[in-house]
């Protein structure tokens, strides 16, 4: 499989990372090298193997439905880039 410039641009868009035209070639080269390494996986037949998502086969623990958190928005918003009227401000959201 070969990665293309348009692939790089597409994934950069999805990830909200800017890659300018000067960088795109270099990024493509690096990613291609890494994907060559990754491609070595394909040599092994895994058709009968179950994917492994977690290190342990443990099941999800459940929390009781109880309110345990108190309002601390003052503390939490003290580290926010921009807040007004207790709201986090962002450039206008257009729907």
């Amino acid at each position: 499989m070969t990665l293309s410039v348009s692939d790089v641009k597409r994934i950069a868009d999805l990830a909200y990372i800017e890659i300018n035209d000067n960088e795109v070639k270099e990024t493509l080269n690096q990613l291609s090298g890494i994907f060559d390494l990754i491609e070595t996986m394909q040599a092994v037949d895994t058709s009968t193997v179950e994917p492994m998502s977690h290190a342990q086969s443990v099941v999800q623990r459940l929390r009781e439905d109880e309110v345990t958190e108190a309002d601390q928005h003052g503390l939490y918003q003290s580290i926010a880039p921009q807040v007004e009227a207790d709201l986090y401000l962002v450039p206008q959201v257009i729907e």
Partner: protein
Amino acid sequence: MQWEIVIGLEVHAQLSTQSKIFSGASTAYGSPPNTQACVIDLALPGVLPVLNKGAVERAIKFGLSVGAKINSPSIFARKNYFYPDLPKGYQISQFELPVVQGGNIQIQADGEEKNIRLTRAHLEEDAGKSLHEDFHGMSGIDLNRAGTPLLEIVSEPDMRSSAEAVVYAKTLHALVRWIGICDGNMQEGSFRCDANVSVRPYGTEKLGTRCEIKNLNSFRFLEKAIDYEARRQIEILEDGGIIRQETRLYDASKDETRTMRTKEDANDYRYFPDPDLLPLEISANWIDQVQSVLPELPQARRDRYMSEFALSAYDASVLTSSRETADYFESTIKQLPAQVKLCANWIMGEINGQLNKEGLEITACPVTPSQLAALLERISDDTISGKAAKAVFESMWNGELEKNVDAIIAAKGLKQISDDSAIEKLVDQVLAANEQQVADYRNGKEKAFNSLVGQIMKATQGKANPAQVNTILKKKLEG
């Protein structure tokens, strides 16, 4: 050409838990901004989700009530996209292996039973809210709602008109409230619909290209949006155009749908199992436990009302439109078992009418089932007429005389005249004073009879027992 409209619905029902699906913050509605967003809801670096048992239990309840399969294990996945009201940059949802798989909902459409198949229902977290009031060119983000548990209920494209879609949505709405998993408050966004709409030539099988309409927060908008969208698609097709698959937004102020995003710029959500959450196992034991506390479902009750009380399908479905209504009905008839139909009529008529007028839920009805039964008992034992009962009801509604039926009847002098000799005397007086009408009646003018009854009722200010008046009058006229 004749077109057939094909509709499937995706409904987001907020689950009525105390705390959020993955955090211990409150889900209460309407609190000041960001006061219910804890470190987990804010997606601070390092925080982790832990699943709320109450949310899972509600999903199981729903699955059982629609005869679906409860998947175990069930897997949580991340749906990745950027939006300011989505703090983690991904929504924890389910992709493969949702909690609820399949199921059916019966609806009453045009007097007929119709089955709507469900594809699935999965658990996920709600997003926060973007407030578009202008903060000098910026939007404000309130994350109180972020992390509220949602059950997304997806139907198959089994509906064929906007009316059917509305009936389905209303049936589902009633069901989630009935089983107590969602408060159904549409103004507060507790129950939200997206509609997938396509059209195809009548008699063909192949589904047309669909558009998804978002943001339908009332049954009326749902109906209007589908109607508009179907018309739009038909017009395009009849002009020889093709439908683009896209997501559209319904604009209620203009009564139209418009493009939100096309398939081409649709996001690649990069779903993958959330590594912070483990497979959810739901034991047979747990399912049994939930089953054992599941209330009798609306459809079962409707069927029972028809078979046990000989109520019509219409009456039975009105009385089972909500669990509270059905419970009200059952409490009433428990005290007046011989007058089921009378109780049903009063609940569907007077009670529902008055509740609607005042915008009240039946749980807030000022007249309790036992008070209503006491009133109706006075109709059935001929103490008062149906008409007088309405006056008594009004007084009870307004809380007069501690809602004591007999006290109100006495105070208003509404007691019916049921004494035969008293009525006979009245009849004689009226007959004597209306010889012409008596003659008319005897000459075959049936109408004259009603006029005579009217005179008698007038003379008693409506208090004479109408049945007795009828019998005695008939006897006298024919005697």
